[in-house]
Structures are given as C-alpha cells and as structure tokens.
C-alpha cells in the first residue's frame, strides 16, 4: 500500500508548472503585511481560493490558502463556529506569517490549530505535512515549521485547520491601572490577557454567569470593544536575526527546501537567509 | 527461550511473564528514584532475573549488585497494574544469592544471630547502654537510647478473659523500644482489653532473616515459635513483624498490626483521645503500606489527636529495609536522604517549625530515620496516641 499523490485540480497544477520553471517568485496574498517585493523580475504568485470542505461536526475546515478570511468567517458563523485568526488577509498569509491575533497567552494559538498544509516546493512538486485529524505525531512536525515560514519554504496552497464553537458570551475589559495585571491573575484562564500601550486588556469567554462572576472579581476594569492591533505587534518575528547554531539551522532549512533561492528573496535577504 | 542456566530456577516463569516492561513501577522504587538507572529498578531487576534464569546472561557482579540493592520494600508491587508478584520473584533470588556467598555475609549473619537469641541481645543491649552513657556509640549504628535496666512488662491488670489479646513482644522491639510496648498495653487496657505478653518463648519472628534472604534460618525460627493454645488475637506493633507473623500464624491465630486493631476501635478512641493541635507527619513503613495495605487507617487514627500532614511520595521507602541499611549503607543513605528531603520540603511548604513529630510504625524505620541529621522528634504512632489519652 502506498500513498498516492493528492490531487487539488488544475489551478494547483498550473501553479506547480509555473514554479518549476520560474527563477524568482514572490508569494502574495492580499499583501496586508506590506512586505511584498516590488522587483519587476519577480513572478507574483497567489494560492488559489475557495473552501474545500467544512465539517462543523468534526470542528475542522479545509481551504485553499488564497481564501480570504472574511469569506471563511461567513461560513463559520452560520455554524456558530470560528477560527483563531483575526479577520483580515488570506488564510495562507496568516499561516505563513503566524498571525495569531491576541491569543498568544492562550494555548489555542495558530500553530496548534493548523492541522495540515499542502505546499508547492521550489521544484514544482507538491508535499503535504500533517493530516486531517485533531491529533497527529506521524513524522516530523513540518506544519509547525510552515506556520510562520514567510513563504521561504514553498507556496502553501491548502490549509486544514481546527474550528471551535463560539462561546456563549465574549466580553473584553480593560484597565490602565498599573496593578491591573495582578487583578487579572485572580481570574481563571481568561481567553486573552494582553498589554497594549500600557493598557491591560482581558477577554473573558464562556457561560454568561461565569463571565459575570469573573468580571465581578476585577476592580477598576471597564467593559470595552476588542482593541485594534498595529502590524508591528503582529509580525514580531521578522524583527530579529538569529545567531550562532540557530542561524546555521535556519540557513540549512532554507537551503534544503529552496536550494536556488526562488521564493521571497526579499524576505530571505532581510533575514540573511539567502544561500 | 534459551537453554536454562544453573541460577534462579526457583523463580516461577509465570511470575516473570506478567511483567510487560511498561515501566509504571519505576517511580515507586526508591533505588530507581535516587539513581535514575534502570539497573536499580524493578523492571530492570525482573529483566535481569529472567535473562539469568533463561541463560541469556551470566550472573555478573553487576547483576548481583542490582539484586543486592533491592530493599524489598515492595513499593513496586501495588504500583504494578499487571499484578506482578514481585515478592515471589525476589525472595528465592535473595535466598540463592546468600547461599552462594557464605563468608562475605558473616557480619550480617552475626547480627541476625544476635537478634534471634534474646539473652545475647539483652546482654549486648546492656553493654551498649553503658557505651551510650559514655557517648561512645556512633549515631550511624542506629541504636536508640536504651536503659541499662529494663522495666518489667508484667503485672498489668487482668481485665477480662473475653477481651484478651496477646502482645507479641519480639526481639529488637522488646530490647530497644520497650516503651512502645508499654504504650501499646496502656492503650489496649484503656480500650478494655487484657493483654497477655507473648514473652521470650515466642522470641524473634524471623522477619529480618527472611527479608535478608536467610530463608532456612527464618523457617527454623518460625518453626520454633510456639502455637499457644490460647487462641486470642495476636497484636504486633512492629510493621515488619506483623507482616511476617500473619504468614506464620495463618492457620492458627488472627494476627493484627496494632494500627489495624486500633482502627477497629476508632469510635472508642474518638472518646478516649484529646486533640492536641499539633502537626504530625506520617512516614509509612513499607511493610505496613505496601505489604499489608494499611495506610489510610494510620492517617485516620492519628487524625483523632493531631493535624496529620501527608508526604506526597507514594509511600516511598525510607531505606531502612530490615538489615538493608547495614548491608547496603550507601544505597540506604541515599534513599533516606530523599525521604528526609521530602519531609523537609513538606514542612517548609507549611512553615518551618510547624510540624512537631514524624510518626513511623516500625522499629527499623524509627531508628534509621533517627540516626540521620533530621531535626524532628520521631515516634511510634502508638506512643503519640497514648500521650493523647484524656
């Protein structure tokens, strides 16, 4: 018994052919990150769009990576579900940049919610990582590597991710008090706990009575809307350069996956990962 | 399976086969806990015994050392979900190993000879008491302070014939911890029982010998214990001895550990004892917890008179292990070090000086723990309960 190659249809095959013959590719979604290259020789490629399958009962959705998140959200809302990524750009873009939103403090972060990725490699071949189940340790965790890989390891064409049921109540609260964080530590696992420009924001979710009871434990907090996020906050991992052996491993990975520096040269150069 | 070897043929194949190598026993083994090495673990020992028995491995000095360092605390046995009867595996192995090296074990043999010959034990105890006054007995010998002249245990009021029990006085317990016998008798009297002293004719129970692998001697001693016509229940206040005597008397007498017996009268004890608002840590002797399955009983008993603080180490052995602390001092001390660290950790998690006593229901543990650097009073639960009588 051997696994057969997956077939995602003509659009993906066309992309594969283009990638195989191209020398320099810039992968784009909606360019919400603003890091797209403006070199004219670069071929700009975008993953196909569209929902492949959505099974609310399995808490799982598969989409082409070029699908815009708000489109996905329309489907999800109809089934009273959601995904962890905030609502802008494409799924592929969010995965490639590890755009998590504010959930960093919580274990339900983006890397833990992506279950499978299908990728076109530099030679135009297709490879898959992960599987369509919620728990999987079959082989090395390429999915973790791909989440936040900034297109340096191939073009992600398909993503399967977990969905979660909408909580009964979702309430943001905030406080600018210096001791606000201590207050927050009295709570039981707020969905989000974050500090933005000196203001502590908390997201409380769950059963109505529980949320009310948790809020009653807080002093000096006010109800509020979800805070808006600056891009800087989102893309931290672009801002530092790795050192020593960590750098060698990063370069080794890039070299293994993209030996001729095809994908996203500009970002690779910024990161000193050209090989 | 390969050709059989000249070793360990007495070990039952089925007992070896129940071990599935899962490793769930590892953390319950004190010697694995302090070394982290498979060779000092139950799983490792079972594997080695099996291989030697099957002739796949020589009986090398490392194998012998692995088996010698087994305390036989039986911590692994209740922890094993497969129900491996580890005592069935290790006992014949210990016996065989000792038979094969008569001369090396001479000091151990001598020690065990003494305990099973009461007049000699008493004579030595008197000599020790003199040396103790002269402060010439090193702490590591683990001998508690003993008086030169021992008090008599006789002449306790004979309350009733229906409510009569026999107190098994034993060897070391009688020579060194006679105060615990007295406290036991006081408590039993308070509960309305007449106490008959087993006395010297019962002598030593042979548990130490059996534990150390001197099966023949143990059998001889056990054979010499008179089966008295008095069929009253036999009460034993040393956990190691109660475990052994339950086997010796299984056809003729009911044998109960004192904790078990007192637990049957817990409602009466609630009336007899006062609460002292002091904290006590319970150190559970292996022969009580792992071998006899008596654990919560002690907690509840002491809970009448004290605030009980539990150790969180699954009843890991303290390292005493009968004569183990003499034959394997290095391993025993390491194991004891871990126990004391756990006691210290638990005390400090409450607050320093918060705990007044450590209780242990076995003379071996009492003396082994007392001979360490630990700075806290260590007492038999019976003594603590007796002190709490209204």
């Amino acid at each position: 018994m051997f696994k057969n190659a997956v077939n995602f249809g003509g659009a993906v095959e066309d992309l594969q052919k283009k990638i195989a013959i191209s020398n320099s590719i810039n992968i784009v979604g909606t360019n919400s990150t603003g890091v797209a290259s403006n070199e004219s020789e670069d071929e700009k490629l975008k993953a196909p769009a569209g929902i492949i399958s959505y099974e609310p009962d399995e808490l799982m959705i598969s989409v082409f990576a070029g699908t815009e998140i708000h489109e996905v959200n329309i489907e999800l809302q109809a089934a009273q579900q959601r995904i962890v990524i905030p609502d802008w750009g494409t799924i592929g873009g969010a995965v490639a940049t590890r755009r998590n939103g504010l959930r960093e403090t919580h274990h339900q972060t983006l890397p833990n919610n992506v279950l499978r990725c299908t990728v076109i490699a530099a030679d135009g071949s297709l490879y898959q990582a992960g599987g369509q189940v919620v728990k999987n340790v079959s082989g090395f965790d390429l999915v973790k590597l791909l989440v936040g890989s900034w297109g340096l390891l191939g073009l992600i064409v398909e993503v399967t991710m977990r969905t979660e049921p909408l909580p009964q109540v979702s309430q943001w609260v905030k406080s600018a008090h210096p001791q606000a964080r201590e207050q927050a530590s009295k709570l039981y696992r707020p969905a989000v706990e974050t500090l933005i420009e000196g203001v502590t924001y908390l997201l409380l979710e769950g059963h109505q009575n529980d949320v009310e009871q948790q809020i009653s434990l807080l002093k000096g907090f006010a109800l509020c809307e979800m805070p808006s996020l600056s891009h800087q906050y989102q893309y931290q991992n672009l801002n530092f350069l790795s050192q020593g052996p960590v750098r060698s491993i990063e370069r080794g990975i890039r070299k293994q996956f993209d030996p001729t520096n095809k994908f996203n040269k500009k970002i690779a150069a910024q990161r000193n990962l050209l090989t | 399976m390969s050709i059989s070897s000249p070793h360990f043929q007495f070990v039952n194949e089925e007992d070896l086969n129940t071990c599935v190598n899962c490793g769930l026993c590892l953390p319950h083994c004190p010697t694995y806990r302090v070394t982290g090495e498979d060779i000092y673990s139950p799983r490792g020992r079972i594997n080695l015994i099996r291989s030697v028995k099957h002739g796949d491995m020589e009986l090398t000095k490392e194998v012998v050392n692995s088996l010698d360092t087994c305390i036989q605390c039986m911590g692994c046995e209740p922890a094993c979900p497969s129900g491996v009867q580890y005592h069935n595996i290790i006992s014949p192995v210990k016996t065989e190993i000792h038979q094969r090296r008569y001369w090396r074990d001479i000091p151990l043999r001598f020690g065990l000879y003494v305990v099973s010959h009461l007049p000699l034990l008493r004579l030595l105890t008197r000599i020790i008491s003199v040396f103790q006054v002269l402060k010439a007995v090193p702490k590591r010998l683990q001998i508690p302070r003993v008086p030169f002249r021992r008090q008599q245990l006789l002449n306790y009021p004979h309350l009733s014939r229906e409510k009569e029990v026999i107190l098994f006085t034993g060897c070391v317990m009688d020579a060194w911890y006679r105060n615990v016998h007295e406290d036991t008798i006081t408590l039993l009297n308070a509960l309305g029982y007449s106490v008959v002293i087993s006395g010297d004719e019962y002598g030593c129970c042979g548990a130490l010998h059996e534990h150390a692998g001197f099966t023949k001697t143990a059998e001889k001693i056990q054979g010499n214990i008179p089966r008295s016509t008095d069929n009253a229940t036999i009460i034993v206040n040393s956990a190691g001895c109660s475990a052994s005597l339950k086997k010796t008397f299984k056809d003729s007498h009911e044998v109960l550990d004192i904790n078990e017996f007192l637990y049957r009268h817990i409602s009466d004890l609630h009336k007899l004892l006062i609460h002292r608002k002091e904290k006590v840590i319970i150190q559970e002797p292996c022969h009580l917890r792992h071998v006899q399955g008596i654990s919560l009983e002690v907690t509840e008993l002491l809970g009448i008179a004290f605030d009980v603080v539990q150790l969180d180490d699954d009843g890991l052995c303290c390292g005493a292990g009968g004569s183990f602390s003499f034959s394997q001092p290095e391993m025993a001390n390491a194991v004891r070090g871990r126990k004391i660290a756990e006691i210290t950790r638990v005390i400090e998690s409450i607050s320093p000086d918060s705990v007044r006593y450590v209780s242990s229901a076995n003379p071996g543990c009492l003396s082994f723990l007392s001979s360490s650097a630990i700075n806290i009073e260590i007492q038999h639960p019976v003594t603590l309960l007796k002190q709490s009588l209204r």
Partner: protein
Amino acid sequence: MSGAVHINTAELFLAGQDGSNMMGSPLGVCYPTTTAEVQNAVRWARSKGVPFIARGAGTGLAGGAIPEAGSLVICLTKMNKIRSIDANRRSAWVEPGVLNADLSRQTSREGLHFAPDPSSQQSCTIGGNVANNSGGPHCLSEGVTSAHILSLEVVLPSGETCTFDAETSLFDLRGAFIGSEGMFGIATAIEVRLVQNPPHVATMVVGFASVHDGALAVSAIIAHGIIPSALEMMDAPITRAVEEYVHAGFPLDAAATLIVEIDGLEYSVIDGSRQIREIVSLFGATSFQVAETAVERARIWKGRKTAFGAIARIQPNYYLHDTVVPRKKLAEVLSQVTAIATQEQLQVMNVFHAGDGNLHPILMFDKRVAGVMDRVHRAGAEIVRVSLEAGGVLSGEHGIGLEKRDFMRWMFTENDLLFQQKLRSAFDPDGISNPHKVLPRGSGCSDTASIPPGSWI
C-alpha cells in the same frame, strides 16, 4: 559515577529496551548530570563516529528509545531538577529527566500544573514528552505537549548548545524540535507553560450497551459544541481488567464505558454536564455516574491510566497501534478492528482517547505460542490500513519510532517524506542522533545502515 560510560552487559541489556517489544544492543550508556556533560557525551560519540541516542524513562511504545547497534545511550534521568518556577508568568524551567507527574506535584502549591498527562505520566520524563510530543486524556481541551513548551535548550548533533524559543529564530525551531523523537538533538532544559488547576471538575462515567452507541455519543458531544476536558472510552474486557485492580466502580455489565470530564468555571461545568447527560441518554446510555469526591475521581483516572498494564492479567504480551481517525468514523473503524482481530484469532481490547478519535486497539497474545507474532503483525497492519482509509493518520501520540516507520509510506508520498528528511538534515546533517527512526528504510528518505538486531517489522 555519572561522567562514566557504563559498558557492563547487564546495563547494556537494559538500555537496549523500552516500553515496546523491541531490543537493541548499544555500545555504552552514560548518565550525564549537566548540559556540559551531555555535550561531552555527544562530542565523544562524534569523535568516535558512533551514533548516540537520548533516553528518558524508556516508557515509549514505538521503540523510539531502542538504540541502533553500537550507539551510545545518553540517559537523562539524573538531570531531574526543576530549575525554577515562575508562578506569575505561569512557567517553569525543568531538566529533561523530571518526571511528568512530579512537575505537576511540585507546582500544585501554586495551583498550577503541566497539562499534558500521558497515561504513563507517573513514570515518563518531560524530555520524552517533548521528543514524542506526547498527549494524554486531558489534551482534548488543553492541546498536546507542543502547546505547552515555551523554550528548549538543546545540545545539537554537532555538539553545540543553543536555545529555541519564540524570539530567536524566524522559523519555529522549537515547534519543529518537539516530536522529533530524539533525531534533532537532545533537549537539556525545557521551559514549560503551566496552567491553572480548574476550580470545578465533573467526572462522569457512562455505560453503553454497545461500542457503537458509545462511539456515536462521542461524535455527538463534540458536534454539539461541547469540548470536554477529557473524553475516553474503554470496552468491556478492559473495563473488567481495570476494575479488578482499582475498584473504581466502573459498570461491569456495559459493553462500552465512557469517561467524560468537564472542568472550568462553575456554570460551564454545571451546564456542560447537564448537556452531556442529555446527549448520552439520547444515545442509549445504560448507566450514568458522577464522581462525588476527589478520591473517586482519582480512582477513575488511575483505572484509565493504568489500563495497559492491567492487560497482563489476561495475556502476557500486547501490541498496539495508536492511529487517529475522524470522530465520525469511530464506530465504523472500531467494528472493522474487531473483525480484523477475529480474522486473525486474536483478542483485542480498546481503551482510547475517543474525543480525539485516537484509537488504541490492544492486541493481546502470548508470544511463546508458535506463529502468533505473524498474526499480530498482520492484524496490526490491517488496523493501520483501515484507519488510513477512513481518512486517519498513523500515530496520535506514541510516535513512529522504529516500529511504525515502514508504515510511513502508507500515509505520506515519497515527496512528503523527502521534505521531512530535509528538515532532519538541517538539524543533523550526519544522521548520528538516534538514526533510522521515523523515516522508512530505502529510497533517499532514511539514514543508511543497519537496523538493531532483534527488532521486528
């Protein structure tokens, strides 16, 4: 003592085994106590051109810790200190040999615990959990080990030391290292995330008249939008074996027993357990008990978590796969598993993480019976095949190790495997860290050379 390499036959023999049925023959075993000592050991192995392999408690079930012939076993059990606990950040730095359950024990004073709770948690090491990305009953709501590791200090196969965390690299090397089964280097210190102990817990034990009903109830609970903290199933034979050992009051007349636990704040627990009760009764629950006390709860979990061991009460050997299937296929795949076992005349028992769809069909046998191993392997392979055909994956938590690597081709294409090998090469270009595991033999995918003698598959 700890710096030395032990080479006596007894220790080598023991270092050649783990919780699987396989056996290897290493060249030596050492017990480093510091990162520097691990580094020395790795450098020594490099200089001699011999492979090395990290070992924790040796409870792995897929042979991940079975050493390649002639390799150096680096056993980390003596590196067992908790270096620091930061209750405010809810994190701790631990050495790899710390036992999983000990960590939670030590942090319980702060009201915190380490969420991954493999059934072997009393014995297995955090290093082993990291290497295998281990799961456990409560990983249904909490996520597996990977979700609870913040940073890793690693001795690389080159002998260099480095740290992987969220801030020092673009690629998530921390995430890539977790689950690498000792093939990317040795974790020598681990920063774990700690989570708050739940204020309210309800543990329910539900009996069903058939495994099929139980499996349908599982899918229904999740489909209903309830994510319990744990959702486990045991079939009748294993329930009986376990009950004999723990006396937790499991329903002995039920064909399948579900353990459903829900935790969190008061009303979510009350409301959740009420809904669960309604759903299971719709699916024909024959009994429903709620554990009243912490002691009862502990007993139920002890029963569940020692279930593998209890098997020896029935047959001396067991073999299991841990495939994961989509929840909606549970009932179907379970009946296929029964049919496969019947076909091969083997006894099978099921005790598994139903909420994740993570099966553990345990084939029981006595290896002394002639020809039985062939039947066991045939049945095992069939179970893998039907699971994959149902859209599942090869392993949910035990890892691939040595035992399942040749099934990898059933799940991945040659190209998929090639990219896994590329990742491995970036960490370990010479292939000396636990070689020949995970990736199948042959083609460009695996390390070249021999397999440990005595191993099967």
